[in-house]
């Protein structure tokens, strides 16, 4: 195909993705432009507040605090989830003994634990990190356990025949074979962690995005409230983009193999 056509097609693909966003943005912008409503301020004001408060202004501190909670809590959840998931996979007895309790904790909505967490850890950094880690650990843990249990016996037999030690079989075979499912768990955990980041802050806090939202809402600062929503959405989008980039790098073999399988079918 001539380069002109390829270029046009690229523009077309970009346009397909962007047009709805552009329409919604313009509708919101013009529809809210003359708004005198306290609850629905003009988009121009909201965007100005995003810049003044969150990018250059005082709310930057809240942003940093929240991202610290998120990062520490999520990393703990990921490490504990993979570690404990692997441990339960390797110790069948422990897995059978603990599975009812795991399920109980998994279905428990984590926000209800905020009061308990406050009693135990106060309202500071520790409480938020514990809460985020506790809520976000389950998808990773259960997916790790499930993914590792599903590893093909032929792959394990092959490793034994090739002389790979038991520890080596976990690191070189079980972990990579289960990686696609573990990564799916990590992605769910990330979403849960972002939710808990906000919830833990607005329930009990003196800083963070969640605190800023509830404070803005209570002090009739609806511009500030709307601007925090936009900031949260941007955090979510960036976190997801980073995650997808890391995933594509780590699992390129999986997507490659799957594409080949799809073609042969």
């Amino acid at each position, binding site marked *: 195909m001539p380069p002109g056509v390829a270029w046009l097609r690229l523009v077309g693909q970009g346009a397909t993705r962007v047009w709805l966003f552009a329409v919604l943005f313009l509708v919101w912008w013009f529809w809210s432009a003359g708004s005198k409503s306290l609850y629905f301020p003009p988009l121009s004001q909201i965007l100005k507040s995003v810049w003044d408060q969150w990018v250059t202004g005082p709310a930057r501190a809240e942003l940093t605090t929240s991202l610290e909670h998120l990062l520490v809590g999520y990393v703990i959840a990921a490490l504990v989830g993979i570690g404990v998931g692997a441990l339960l996979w390797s110790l069948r007895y422990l897995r059978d003994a603990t599975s009812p309790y795991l399920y109980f904790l998994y279905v428990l909505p984590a926000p209800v634990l905020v009061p308990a967490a406050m009693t135990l850890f106060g309202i500071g950094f520790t409480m938020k990190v514990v809460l985020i880690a506790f809520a976000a650990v389950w998808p990773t843990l259960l997916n790790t356990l499930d993914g590792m249990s599903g590893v*093909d016996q*032929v*792959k394990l*037999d*092959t490793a*034994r*025949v*090739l*002389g*790979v*030690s038991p520890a*080596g079989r976990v690191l*070189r*075979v079980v972990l*990579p*074979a289960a*990686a696609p499912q573990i990564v799916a768990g990590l992605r769910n955990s990330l979403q849960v962690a972002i939710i808990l980041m906000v919830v833990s802050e607005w329930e009990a806090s003196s800083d963070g995005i969640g605190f800023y939202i509830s404070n803005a809402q209570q002090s009739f600062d609806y511009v500030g409230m709307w601007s925090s929503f936009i900031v949260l959405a941007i955090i979510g989008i960036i976190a997801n983009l980073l995650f997808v980039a890391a995933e594509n790098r780590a699992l390129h*073999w*999986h997507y*490659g*193999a799957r594409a*080949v*399988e799809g073609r042969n079918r």
Partner: protein
Amino acid sequence: MNGNEVTPQAATSADGLVATPVVSLRHVRKVYGGAAGEKVALADITFDVARGEFACVVGPSGAGKTTLLRTLAGLAQPTSGEALFEGTPLRSVPPGIGVVFQDYGRSLYPWLTVARNVELPLRVRGVPKAERAERVTEVLASVGLADAGRSYPWQLSGGMQQRVAIARSLAYRPDLLLMDEPFASVDAQTRFELEDLILRVRQEFGVTVVFVTHDIDEAVYLADRVIAISKSPGVVTEIVDITLPRPRDQITTKADPAFARYREHLLGLVMQGR
């Protein structure tokens, strides 16, 4: 085609002493399942395989061929009887055995490149890096995949993937190569190529081969001896010496009247054994 092939070594070594067989099965019995439903996979299997020999095991589906191979590899323990590798009872997988499984798609690691797959057994044996690279190059060249090292297995055709699996099994120079219906999932043309490949590399690497197949033509074409086993109760019905001349050739060997006689005889055994 298989130019430098020679006949296998005799079971007796040069100084006149009887050499230890590479494989020795003594009344091996393997039963699966408990009180609810016992399944006898192997009832009573006894045979030896001498050093350098190419032995094919044939039998109908369900005759316990795969169980037999897993027992030979040390992956499964016999319920009773004894399985010896180079005179030592098999309690686990010994380092001197290579296995090529039927399903290359399941036994190759898709997250490793071809070269890394082949390198894995060397890496876990602590072979130094420079030597590893050298051996990987050498063994990939032997199976005709000199340029495929940087590809991933799933980027290759089925026949090429099975070559990778063969290369990986040979990389650490095992004394015994076990093959479980390795060419059952490739097309006929590729199958002939791989049969000739395995005859060539077993000579090059001086490896003893036990090759499980349900294809009698393939068994006769490859083997020095064919071990026929029957379904339920899973016993050796006959061991047939194949004295067809080597090097063998897909066209002339298969046109040999002796080939047809072996084929007919073994087919009769396998049909009876169903």
